[in-house]
């Protein structure tokens, strides 16, 4: 079996998540080649074929052009699987490659199982086993689902180049918003999720954070609704935290939230739904209404 792994490069750096692709290929027991639109100054530490296109010429985000490069490598390698990370780069590019080749795509793979690939569905509550019906397939793997692997060695480089035909102009990056809280330093984080109900209830969560000597975090919907500022957001598009204690209040446990907090030492979740996926990683799941339980807990802690 053969895989073509599509590495990632952003703001002048080879992304570490590229090593998760190697971890995945290793679990598959597959022979690997990699493709990277990057630079010779930063190469993945592995000893296989590397199709390398120059990022200065091809751009960091130019899906039309990157697709052409990938199709060229696919032609040379004939891989069984073309593998991306399920990331802003991967989910944008993968369907373009799959559609051009008219082959199956399996997204957000969390595990390799008998008879196919396991993917999350229903906001992470359930799983599906999916099987490509085509001989080749495009796969995207969930960030954090497979181990980081750095096999060592240095790749054998084959240069690729292509010229544009792209319908898209990349203007540049915009930096993350300024932080008004630094969650990375907090020993205790109490986070508010959509289950908190409304903006008026936010002080109840803030009070528990204060009583425990910590900071308040939040899930994305709470930030999107402008109940709290973005600097409180925990998750893939917010901050990654690992406090001694993380208390998740009314948070379902979507994969993008878990990615930001699952390394916390001790996790307590308060949720009215016993089956909420947060229960999978919580040390303690308290099945209760946040607005009843949290004030009662705060009162006892403060005493």
């Amino acid at each position, binding site marked *: 079996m053969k895989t073509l792994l599509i590495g990632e490069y952003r703001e002048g750096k080879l992304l570490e998540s590229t090593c998760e692709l190697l971890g995945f290929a290793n679990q598959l027991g597959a022979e690997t080649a990699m493709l990277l639109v990057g630079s010779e100054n930063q190469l993945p530490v592995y000893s296989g074929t590397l199709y390398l296109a120059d990022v200065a010429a091809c751009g960091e985000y130019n899906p039309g052009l990157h697709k052409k490069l990938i199709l060229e490598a696919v032609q040379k390698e004939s891989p069984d699987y073309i593998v991306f990370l399920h990331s802003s780069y991967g989910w944008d590019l993968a369907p373009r490659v799959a559609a051009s080749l*008219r082959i199956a795509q399996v997204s957000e793979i969390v595990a390799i199982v008998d008879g196919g690939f396991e993917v999350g569905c229903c906001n992470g509550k359930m799983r599906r086993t999916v*099987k490509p019906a085509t001989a080749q397939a495009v796969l995207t793997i969930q960030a954090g689902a497979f181990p980081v692997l750095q096999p060592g060695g240095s790749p054998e480089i084959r240069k690729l180049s292509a010229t544009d035909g792209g319908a898209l102009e990349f203007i540049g990056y915009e930096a993350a918003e300024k932080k008004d809280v630094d969650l990375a330093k907090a020993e205790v984080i109490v986070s508010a999720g959509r289950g908190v109900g409304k903006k008026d209830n936010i002080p109840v969560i803030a009070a528990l954070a204060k009583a425990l000597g910590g900071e308040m975090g939040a899930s994305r919907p709470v930030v999107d609704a402008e109940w709290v500022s973005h600097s409180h957001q925990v998750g893939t598009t917010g901050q990654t935290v690992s406090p001694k204690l993380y208390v998740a209040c009314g948070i379902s446990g979507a994969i993008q939230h878990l990615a930001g907090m699952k390394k916390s030492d001790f996790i307590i979740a308060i949720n009215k739904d016993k089956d909420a996926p947060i229960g999978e990683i919580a040390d303690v799941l308290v099945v209760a209404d946040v607005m009843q339980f949290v004030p009662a807990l705060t009162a*006892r802690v403060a005493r």
Partner: protein
Amino acid sequence: MKLLVCIKQVPDLESRFKPDAAGVWYNETDLAFRMNEYDEYAVEQAVQLREKLGEGTELTVLSIGPDRVVEALKKALAMGCDNAAHIQDPAASGKDPWQIASIIAAYAKDKGFDVIFTGMQSQDRGSAQVGVTIAEQLGLACTTTIVSFDYDNGTITAKRELEGGIKGVVKLKTPALVTCQLGLNVPRYPTLPNIMKAKKKEITAIPVVELLREEALATTASFHPPAKKGGGIVLEGDVSDLVDKVIAILKDKTAVLR
């Protein structure tokens, strides 16, 4: 100008999911359905563009699914879409993203849409494939995961959300397709007068057989809950007992209470 927004109806994600008889998707009994959250942002953005462009612009909302999806279409009409296309397919949940995208592309082909909006992903299926695949099939420019959208004279300027809170700014020429991310805007609630007005708007029903030309490229072998890792304690019962237990655990297992 002609605009299209694609919406999916999904179950309330706080529901309990049980496998259906074939064991490949959820059983719909007892589930309440509503518009996919990502698609609400798509509809809002399409309506805002429709309002900005004014007279002479037509915004169509499309959904593939059984009769229940008409409810979601009605909501989109009440939010400000001009007309709706219901692609009738009681078996939509069994189709793979390639087929769903092909059906939408077959519908949109030759209709001359300038901008197509979709959600970034559906909450139940979560493949994040349908939007980009439609664009590929129609040969449209496309960008994904947008959290900001601006249109001026044939050019879209969008911000894509990347990992860790940074954004990528992109310009693309119409005709184009964008996939919408959470937080793109604040979706409006339909007002009563708009709900009444929407009743007069046209919903065209099209049987899926008229548009379906593709076989599935992937199949679902099973639908099941995640393997329980166990380990975690589940506490249930009276609030004051729960507080006692949690205090004891905090004292025992963490250094935060003394």
